[in-house]
């Protein structure tokens, strides 16, 4: 088991190198630091000195891959590639365009992101599984058909409309909760209710539909027929046998997304003004702060790979038939 995990972690390294190369290509080769400086300083009439000063200030004045001027190891390390890309491996994100430490910002901003993402995941999971079980219990009745139509309609609505609708109804029309914002510590709860509700409702369509099909697949299996033949009640079969076995794909599906919860939700956070990593990314995109976008790309890739490894491990934990070698 530990050998397997070690091998998976080693296998992740070439992938991360690949991610790093892609971002490097995108951010420094397709457009030179010169273009970036011009973009930030204004379009047409920019002096060469101003561009040089901007590049020196942000550390883009080094050569891309190989530094002729330096000697020894420094000819490789004193380059944009090493300073801006390789250092990401040590989680040294550098500083953003306005001079803040990106690593510190990330460590601060991940908590609000988690404060929304974790409740959305938990409540959503509980609701979707219960609803799917309810539908499956009444399968092939009007409840089933009506629910499926409702679910397809719900998943055909853009997430933007859920947010806009939720804000409009709960905050503007009934003044139940503040429309957006955030507060320190436990006072944040009243700002969190609305995003959590919207997040859960927005996920019902796809989530419940998926769980329903998982349950239906499970219910067609032989052991369920055996259980019924033994004379077990439908409710007992559903909760004892079907639910427990269907939990395996559900659990592994959840484990994949667990690490990515840190990244927060771009749209939700920017709509509700929550200072998490999602709105951090959005702000960076609209301010064209490439250092932050680059860091978030790398962080996202690391978390994604972590999620894959965790999924494999969780398989062995919940399903004794699966052994990793």
């Amino acid at each position, binding site marked *: 088991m530990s050998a397997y995990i070690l091998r998976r972690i080693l296998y992740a390294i*070439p*992938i991360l190198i*690949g*991610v790093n190369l*892609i*971002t490097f290509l*995108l*951010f420094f080769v*397709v*457009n030179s630091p010169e*273009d*970036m400086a*011009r*973009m930030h300083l204004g*379009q047409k009439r920019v002096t060469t000195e101003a561009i040089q000063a901007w590049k020196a200030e942000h550390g883009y004045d080094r050569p891309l891959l190989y530094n002729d001027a330096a000697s020894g190891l420094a000819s490789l390390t004193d380059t944009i590639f090493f300073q801006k890309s390789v250092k990401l491996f040590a989680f040294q994100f550098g500083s953003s365009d306005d001079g803040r430490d990106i690593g510190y910002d990330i460590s601060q901003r991940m908590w609000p992101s988690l404060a929304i993402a974790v409740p959305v995941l938990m409540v959503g999971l509980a609701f979707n599984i219960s609803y799917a079980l309810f539908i499956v219990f009444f399968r092939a009745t009007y409840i089933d058909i009506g629910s499926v139509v409702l679910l*397809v*309609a719900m*998943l*055909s*609505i*853009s*997430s*933007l*409309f859920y947010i*806009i609708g939720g*804000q*409009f109804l709960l905050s*503007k029309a009934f003044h139940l909760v503040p429309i957006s914002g955030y507060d320190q510590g436990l006072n944040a709860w009243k700002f969190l209710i609305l995003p959590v509700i919207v997040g859960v409702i927005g996920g019902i369509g796809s989530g419940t539909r998926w769980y329903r099909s998982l349950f239906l697949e499970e219910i*067609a299996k032989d052991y369920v027929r055996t259980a019924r033949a033994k004379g077990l009640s439908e409710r007992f079969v559903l909760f004892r046998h079907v639910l427990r076995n269907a939990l395996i794909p559900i659990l592994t599906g959840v484990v994949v997304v667990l690490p*990515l919860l840190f*990244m927060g939700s*771009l*749209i939700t956070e*920017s709509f509700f003004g929550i200072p998490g990593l999602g709105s951090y*990314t*959005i702000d960076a*995109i*609209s301010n*064209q702060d*490439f250092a932050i*976008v*680059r860091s*978030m*790309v790398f962080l*996202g*890739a690391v978390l*994604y*790979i972590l999620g894959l490894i965790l999924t494999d491990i969780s398989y062995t934990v919940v399903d004794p038939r699966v052994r990793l070698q």
Partner: protein
Amino acid sequence: MPLIPVILWTDALVLVLLALGLTFALYASRHEHLRDPWRRVVRSRVGVATLVVLMAYALVGLLDTVHLRLKQDARPGVEEARYSPEVLSLLDLALSGLRERQEKTYSAPFATHLFVKEAIDQPDGTVVRDYPRLKYGGAHLENPARQRGWDIAWRSLLGAVKGIIASGLFILGVCWLLARSWGVSLIEARDRILAGKTQVPWRTALMTLAALLVLSSVAAELALQYHVLGTDKVGEDVFYQTLKSVRTGLLIGTLTTLVMLPAALLLGIAAGYFRGWVDDVIQYLYTTLNSIPGVLLIAAVILMLQVYMSNHADSFTSLVERADLRLLFLCLILGVTSWTGLCRLLRGEALKLREIDYVQAAQSLGVGQFSVIARHILPNVMHIVLITLVLDFSGLVLAEAVLSYVNIGVDPTMNSWGNMINSARLELARDPVVWWSLAAAFLFMFTLVLAANLFADVVRDAFDPRLRQASGA
């Protein structure tokens, strides 16, 4: 010539897509194992109803894809023909009334007065702050307060009657064609369709079509005199905007799959067919691309495109061209983030197919690797491509809205549902609320995505062999 055609990049790709679709349809119609699932699709009631709705959208999108420039009036002394710099589409020409009837600013659906108060000069020289009359919306009414309700009702009725007549004629035509192909009388054909006992559920299809025709006829009749869905901040008709957005949504939904197709086909089949180190390299490639969060990759690429475009502003002759190129890039990058799924499916299928007898036989007879792939593997994975196209469509249409909201979607000057929602965001904070832009985008987007989702379900059920066995067919 009174006009010259303009072919934008995306227009050309739509033509490629149409050609591919027709080729595949011809190919599938000659092969029973491909024809059978599609027959299943058109025999499902949900299938035909959603197909009719999707075709209506496709018609709007196609009309909007034929671009041209009109000839300008000849000036004295200038011999050569001059063409207007404005690139228009057939849809623009058809809706030129809607396009040209621009008000000053916001006005509600069916309004006769502007949404904001303005200083109006009275005939007697005094100035009153009031809601001014609209330039076009309901301008034919002398006393809007009294006449408007009756006028709207009368016009709706007129539109409905016209729609019913049009759909009646159309249905008659279809009945006549069907009667001929079945070899029965027209009455007999009508009875069969009405009883709903035909194999293809013609009754559902024709009823959906009639409903669409009547609805659009009513809307058209009303749109002659009113702004059916109101006007936006700069006074543009929202109905026109949302119809123009149809093309953007459809393009994102379909072209994305088209542009990623060559890469996915080539790499997926190569990985599955050759195995070994080729497989390893390709798997490494798609795992790497997959591990970058999609939104961030799109953001990074669109940012870079923005930098490039602002530094090379001279190389684009018109705004339309620039917006079009950005749309194409968006499709490309969305394709890069989503081709991995298709690639993995194709790899699995190729792994399976290479062991099948006829492929083994071809190999042992000494047929070259590439002929085997072209003759035996490729035709047998095309249905996967098609299903992916259908299944991914609705997700991509929804993604466009979200991306445009984050400003990494289509060009802000382009008509799209995402841009409509984005600009309507602040309008909800006004008092009274400006809701119509949002409602229009919601209505049209929801209809399209719902139809696409339902259609995708039917297609998937028809192609999924497991479900087919379960139903005993």
